[in-house]
């Protein structure tokens, strides 16, 4: 049986095989809170998936479990591409830029490579490339406190991309930024994603952000945290500011909002 399954797996093309696969995942916190219940989720290669839901729905918890920051209480999270052999298969972007204040932008970006014991010259070159991708070449030697909020977040994204990850996990990365900066970073993130072949799992509580960015929106409800809807956003890329004002965008926003409202209603009934 197992041998057969393995053989079947080998025959699958990488593009159709899920990168991350959650089966019956549950998480109970030590205080007894049921944060996640029976979560099934397959994420395909180079997909842009948003986890959308009200606060307390366990979307960040799920993301952290996928990252391996904590073990699920039940169920399993599979990395068919075998993450074990490669510490850099995934990267994480936190809500705060989470930079080391004592290090310059380029030193911050070099950190994951330094931990992997890459030579300083090679690491510096790759970090400089990553900073160029996010448009911060001129700020290599600036300290975090000399940068604006949006620029710090760009450094954080550069640090996540410097390891050339398969999967980029983002936990409400732009929630603390002003709208103009957020739109700009949304556009740049989409451009980066289209130009490379990593998968993005993006946690957000903004309907508009999830509809703008993602191909697929997984809507979650709270208490207990669970998936209640899986929406496809059928709109072509590249998406730009024209898409933000198009009827198609509005339509998707409406259906995502409806799903989110029903998620809140679920919550109200249970609560």
């Amino acid at each position, binding site marked *: 049986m197992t041998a057969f399954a393995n053989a079947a797996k080998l025959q699958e093309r990488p593009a159709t095989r899920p990168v991350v696969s959650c089966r019956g995942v549950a998480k109970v916190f030590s205080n007894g809170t049921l944060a996640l219940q029976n979560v099934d989720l397959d994420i395909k290669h180079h997909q842009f998936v948003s986890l959308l839901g009200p606060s307390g729905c366990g979307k960040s918890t799920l993301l952290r479990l996928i990252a*391996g920051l904590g073990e699920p209480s039940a169920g399993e999270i599979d990395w068919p591409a075998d993450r074990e052999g490669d510490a850099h298969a995934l*990267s994480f972007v*936190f809500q705060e830029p*989470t930079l080391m*204040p*004592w*290090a310059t932008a380029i030193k911050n970006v070099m*950190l994951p490579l330094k931990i992997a014991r890459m030579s300083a010259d090679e690491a510096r070159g790759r970090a400089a490339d990553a900073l160029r991708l996010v*448009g911060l070449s001129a*700020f290599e030697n600036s300290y975090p406190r000399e940068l604006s909020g949006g620029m710090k977040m760009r450094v954080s994204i550069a640090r996540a991309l410097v390891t050339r990850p398969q999967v980029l996990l983002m936990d409400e990365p732009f929630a603390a930024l002003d709208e103009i900066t957020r739109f700009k970073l949304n556009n740049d993130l989409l451009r980066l994603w289209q130009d490379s072949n990593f998968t993005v799992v993006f946690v957000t509580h903004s309907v508009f952000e999830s509809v703008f960015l993602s191909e697929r929106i997984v809507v979650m409800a709270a208490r207990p945290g669970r998936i209640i809807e899986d929406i496809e956003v059928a709109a072509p890329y590249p998406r730009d500011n024209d898409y933000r004002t198009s009827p198609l965008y509005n339509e998707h926003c409406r259906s995502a909002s409806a799903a989110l409202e029903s998620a809140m209603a679920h919550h109200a009934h249970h609560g």
Partner: protein
Amino acid sequence: MTTPLAQVAEQDGTAPVFLREKTILGLPASAWPKILMPLAVGLLSLGAWEMVVRINQIPPYILPGPILIATTMWLDWGTLSGSLWITLSISLAALAVAVVAGVALAILFAQSKWVELSFFPYAVILQVTPVVAIAPLIIIWVDNVQLSLLICAWIVAFFPILSNTTLGLNSADHNLLNLFQLYRASRFQTLLYLRLPAATPYFLAGLKISGGLSLIGAVVAEFVAGTGGSASGLAYRILESGYQLRIPRMFAALFMISISGIVIFLCLSFLSHLVLRRWHESALKREN
């Protein structure tokens, strides 16, 4: 000295602009009031003191005036400078040992909660026991007087460094710790790249406190050792001058202790500024 306040737009490829502050005689213009104001207060106080002594004709063996103290310091410089050197070298050696031992122990504590829980209370006991009370014992136990003084000064100076560095090592940003975990950093890498840099401001704050305390510890221990010992630091000069009723010299020695304390504090503050100026909030100048 430049204040690197990057005046930047949220724009790709814009080079950062650094504001250069105006300098007077090599120091930033804003630093001068910080130096001149306390200096003015000091000079005025000394002037008032001299006036009071002269007007009331207070005899020098009760209260010498600052001018007489300064003259005494000049005339007795040969003896006093030797004593100053002895006291300072004991203080600085004690501070150095306190830094090494404090940081090493803090790193050990950071490795395991159990080690910290088991040993930290004893560090507290060492701290709260008055050094005057244990100094006689240490002086009896240790043959070498210099060494016993150094141990006393170390006991006083050691705790702020241990306590602050321990706090600092445990204060690394939680998300950054997660990030290190995610990239599978070793314990040593996490210590070197994250915990130690995060602890630096805490350590430096502790160092500033310990700098003064090591001097106090050295002086207190010398007092306890008293005239019986072969030591001849500034505290010994104060005792000696007291017995001989050479009160101006006693004041001169007292002044030298205070000035040494101030110089140690200023040096450590400057060191702290040098290390933290590029990144830490405490060294950051706000425009609003």
